[in-house]
């Protein structure tokens, strides 16, 4: 018998604090697996957001920084420009990337910064207890849109993959999901491709990964995967939105 699946080296052996079924755990592991497979752990610097994954620096087994809310792409810009042969990625949630950090992500892609962003879209602000996010769906209930999001009052959801893909500085932008084994494998391929785009110096890369928040959605982890498929996929279609060769 040989081991075919185990904890990657790029993750520490610490217990995750995330809720049961939280897809942060899956995605952290996929990123770590790619870093292991590309053998770039010692040259990687990860930038963690403000959100549930603020503690990702306790999980990733390489140099990491905690960023002020939304500012990870700016931090990454400086690090990558000063150390161009390192791999720099940001890991950000809905509020971090699409609300307070909107300017930073747009400008990082406009400037073609050779960094990679992993955008974890679960339609809500998880850490602070389930408030509305720019990615909350129309009709969806959150603690700050308790009557359900209405376009008239709360505006429309943000489609970040489509938005960023329009910028010429973005070399690879796609949206994947982690609701099924097949989609988890596709997400890993996308993460790998994004890092290879950085490796080749082609420009900014981003993978938007549809994720679950069972606790704030009030669903079991398995139900949450189903909810993602039923409710999020129509608003946030999966696919590659930009891929320069």
């Amino acid at each position, binding site marked *: 018998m040989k081991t075919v699946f185990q904890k990657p080296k790029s993750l520490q052996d610490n217990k995750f604090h995330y809720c049961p079924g939280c897809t942060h755990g899956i995605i952290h592991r996929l990123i770590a697996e790619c870093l292991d497979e590309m053998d770039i*752990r*010692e*040259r*990687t*610097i990860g*930038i*963690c957001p403000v959100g549930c994954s*603020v*503690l990702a*620096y306790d999980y*990733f*087994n*390489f*140099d*990491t*920084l*905690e*960023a*002020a809310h939304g*500012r990870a792409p*700016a*931090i*990454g*810009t*400086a*690090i990558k*420009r*000063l*150390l161009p042969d*390192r791999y720099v990625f940001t890991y950000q949630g809905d509020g971090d990337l699409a609300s307070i950090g909107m*300017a*930073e992500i*747009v*400008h990082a892609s406009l*400037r073609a910064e050779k960094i990679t962003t992993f955008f974890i879209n679960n339609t809500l602000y998880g850490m602070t207890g389930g408030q509305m996010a720019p990615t909350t769906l129309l009709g969806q209930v959150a603690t700050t849109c308790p009557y359900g999001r209405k376009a008239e009052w709360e505006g429309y959801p943000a489609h970040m993959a489509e938005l960023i893909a329009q910028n010429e500085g973005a070399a690879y932008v796609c949206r994947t999901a982690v609701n099924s084994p097949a989609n988890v494998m596709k997400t890993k391929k996308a993460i790998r491709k994004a890092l290879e785009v950085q490796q080749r110096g082609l420009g900014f890369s981003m993978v938007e990964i549809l994720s679950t928040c069972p606790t704030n959605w009030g669903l079991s982890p398995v139900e949450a995967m189903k909810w993602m498929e039923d409710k999020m996929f129509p608003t946030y279609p999966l696919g590659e939105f930009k891929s320069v060769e």
Partner: protein
Amino acid sequence: MSRVLMKGNEALAEGAILAGCRGFFGYPITPSSEIAEYMARKMPTIGGVFVQAESELAAINMVYGGSSAGFRVMTASSGPGISLKQEGISFLSEGELPSVIVNVSRGGPGLGGIQPSQADYFQATRGGGHGDYHTMVLAPSGVQEMMDLTMQAFHWADYYRIPVMIMAEGTLGNLMEPITVREPVTEFIDKPWVTNGCKDRAPNVMNTLHLDSDFLEKRNHHLQAKYDQIQQECKRAETFMVEDADIVIVAFGLMGRIAKKSVSEARKQGVKAGLIRPITLWPFPDGVIQAAAQTAKRFLSVEINMGQMIEDIKLALEGRVPVEFYGRIGISPNPEEITRQIVNIAAREGWI
């Protein structure tokens, strides 16, 4: 060492480069934009990095990243932009990230004006951001000090692992004077804590979140111990004719230089005047003020604001000697104006 006619903002930028700064991140704002423009021209020629950031928020966070990666980095801005940077400065302070932040001051509050000002003194010295922290604050009074204090700032930033602010009035940014260009710095402090890739070592983490209150308390005590050390080691001030002064003028920056002329003129009119020009605003040179208070009968704080440094003077004096205030907004008072104030006080008190 050559003598060159330089503009204040450019001397500051050149001083940074001589001190080994290889990353500038900033957003244009009057009257600091020339620093960004100088860096935009120079950085590519020396293998450095210049980024015009999308905002002041982005710029200070680029400084956070660049410093954490182990480089000497800086940003420059003015009033409203410095206000935007406060969260970043708090983060830099807790992360103990060496950095230099320049405020070429303009009038406020609000969008204010673009004339010189000293009204950011509280913001600079009391820490405009959240939490218990201090940044060092240096106040140049001429173009030579724009270069020299910038070089000193980078050294102290690395040595103490602290953000250092250089605060200069807008006038000083645009003033042109002949200066001696200093030699480039060649020796740099080792930084084993940097996040630049964990090759051949355990990973480093740069974080400022400490959810455990015991740890957070220890952390704050650690920072305070550093601030206490800086208080012991780094206070700087220029003194002029204070030994026998009846009235001591306290003024910083360009105002300090103007006041020096006023003190000389007041002496010619028979008033025993003296000057203390704080060079470090934090740590505030209270010792020099306390020493002068042994003989002085009165202090006069002259500032381009509504009265800010005067509070630190009063704290230093602990009520032993009265302190008065003279201030203007949006204009550096000319020497005659201040001389008149000094002479009027002397006459009122019956010294002349």
